[in-house]
C-alpha cells in the first residue's frame, strides 16, 4: 500500500443529508394532503355557492395540487442529491467537511 494515499471514510456530507431526508419524511407526516378537505368547499357540501367555488378554484385547488405533488417530489429531490454524492471520501476531506458541518 502507498503510505501517501489517505484512507477513504464515509462521506459526512452524505450522512448529514441522509438526516435531512429523515426530517423531510417526518415533515410529511404533518404536512398532509389537503385534496379531500379542499374538495368539500365549492365542489362538496362543506360550503356551496359561487364564492365557495371561487375560493376552491383560485386558492384551495392550487394549494392542494402544490402540496400533493411536492410530497412526492420533496423526497425524490433529496434522494437525487444523495445519489450524486460519493459514499466515501478521503479522510482529510472528511475532516474538513465535518468541521464545516459542525460550524453550521
Amino acid at each position, binding site marked *: 500500500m502507498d503510505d501517501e494515499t489517505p484512507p477513504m471514510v464515509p462521506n459526512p456530507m452524505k450522512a448529514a443529508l441522509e438526516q*435531512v431526508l429523515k426530517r423531510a419524511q417526518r415533515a410529511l407526516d404533518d404536512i398532509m394532503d389537503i385534496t379531500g378537505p379542499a374538495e368539500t368547499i365549492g365542489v362538496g357540501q362543506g360550503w356551496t355557492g359561487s364564492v365557495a367555488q371561487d375560493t376552491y378554484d383560485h386558492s384551495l385547488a392550487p394549494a392542494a395540487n402544490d402540496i400533493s405533488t411536492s410530497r412526492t417530489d420533496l423526497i425524490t429531490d433529496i434522494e437525487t442529491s444523495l445519489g450524486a454524492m460519493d459514499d466515501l471520501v478521503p479522510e482529510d476531506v472528511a475532516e474538513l467537511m465535518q468541521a464545516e458541518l459542525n460550524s453550521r
Partner: protein
Amino acid sequence: MNTSASNRYASIDLDVLGQAVADLEETLNGLHQWLPGLERDFAYFGVDTASLNRLGAAKRELDSVVPDLRERHRRAEILLVHQSNYRLHGEDGVVHFTGDLIDGNGHVSHQIHDQTSRPPGEVNQWWTGLGDDEKNYLTEYHPYLLGRLDGVPVSFRDQANRAVLAHEIERLRHELSRLINPPGLDTPLYFDGRPVPPTDPMAHLPRLQEASRLGQRLPGLLAIQERLERTDPPAYLIDFSTQGLGRTVISIGNPDEADNVGTYVPGTGSQLDERINTDIRRADIMFDDAHDAAKSSSTAVIMWLGYNAPQDVILDVQNPSHTAWSPSRAESAAPNLRRFQETLRVTHIEGNSHNTLLGHSYGTTVIGHAAKEGDIHVDNLVFIASPGVGVNHVSDLGVDAGHVFATTAHGDPILFTPDRILGTQPSSNRFGLHTIDGTIGPTYFRSNPGGHSSYWDNGNKARNNFAYIITGQYGFVR
C-alpha cells in the same frame, strides 16, 4: 323545507366545513413548523428547491384562506343558532344564506337583528336597499324576525307570518299529542323532565292544564289559517305570535295599497283562541261595508290584537291590573299601537292613505291612551261602546275633535261604567262630543239598541257609520 328553493342559496354544513378547516389548519401548522428548516438544509446541500418552493406557495395561500374559512364557520354557527331557534331550519346542521357571509356591510342575516330596535322609517329604508334575492332569503329563513319587523312591507310580513303560523300549528299539534296521549300503565310518565307516578291523579294536573291551554289556543290558529286561505277578499297576516295571550294583526285587503285603512282594536276577552274568529269577522264586515259605501276607492280593514287584552270584566282584587277595571293594559299597549299606525304610514305606497282607528270596549281605552300620549298618525278615532278612554274631554286626545266619533247603544251595559274607572265615557255630554244634524255630520252617532257586541249585527246603522267614517264620507254619518 323546500329543497328546490334552498338550492337558490349558498350553504354551509357546519360539521363538514368544521372538519375541513381543522384538517387545513393542521397541514398549515406543519408547513410553518417544517419549511424554514428544510429551506436552510436544501440551500446548504444544493438540493433542487422546486418542490419546496411549491410548498411555500401553498403555505402562503393557506395563510390567507384558512382564517377566512374559520370566520365563515363562526358566522355560520351564529346563523345556525338563529335559524334553528324556532326549528324552522338548521336541524340538519346546514345553514343557507344569500350572498357572502363575510360582507363588508354585514350579512343580511346579521343586519336584520340590528333592525328590531330601529324606527319603522329606518327599517323601511334598509329594506328598500336590499336586493330581491336578499328579501326572499330573509322571508324564507328569518320569518319569525321578519314577520314582526315594523317598516317591512305588508306583503313580505304576510309571507313570513304564514310560515310562522304553519310552523306553530304543527308545533302545537305535536305538543298536544305528547301531553294527552295516555301512556301505558307500565310506561313512566314524565312532565318537565320529572317522573310522575301513574297512580297519582293530582300529579297529572299541570300536564292536563297545559294541554287544556294549548287545546284552546289551537282553534284560534286554525281560524286564522282558514281566513288566510280565502282570497276574496285576500287577507294579510301582518303580525303574529303565540307568546303569552298571543298577538294577531290581520288585514282584510292590503293596507300598503289601499286608499282607506281602518284599524279595529278589540276589547276585553280578546286573545288568540277561537274567539279570534269574532274579531276577524268584524274586520271582514267593516271591509265589505266600506267597499259598498265607496266602490271607487279601495279599503283595507285591520284587526289589531297587538296587546294583552284584559280577560275579565269582574274586578280581581288579587290582580287588579289584569282586568278591564284597570288602565294598565291600555297604558302598556299604547306605544305599540302608535308604532303600528306610524308603520302603516311608512309602508304605504304613494302618499298617505285615509286612516281610521276604531276601538270596541276596552279597545277604545287603548286608543285613547295611545292618542293622548303622542302622535297617533291617523285621521279619525272611533270609540264604540267605550267605558272610558283615559281622558275626560275630547280636547285632551291631541286629535282634531271634528274627527273623533263615538257611539254606545241603548241597552249596552257599558253605559254603567263609572267615570272614575277609565275616564269620562265619550258618550257622555261631559266628554265634549255632540250630535249634529246637518251637512257636517255628527261626531256622536247612534247605534241600534242592543247589547255590548251588537254593533256589527245585520241592519245595525252603526255599520253604515263605520263605513262612512272609514271612507271619509263624514257628511253621511248619522
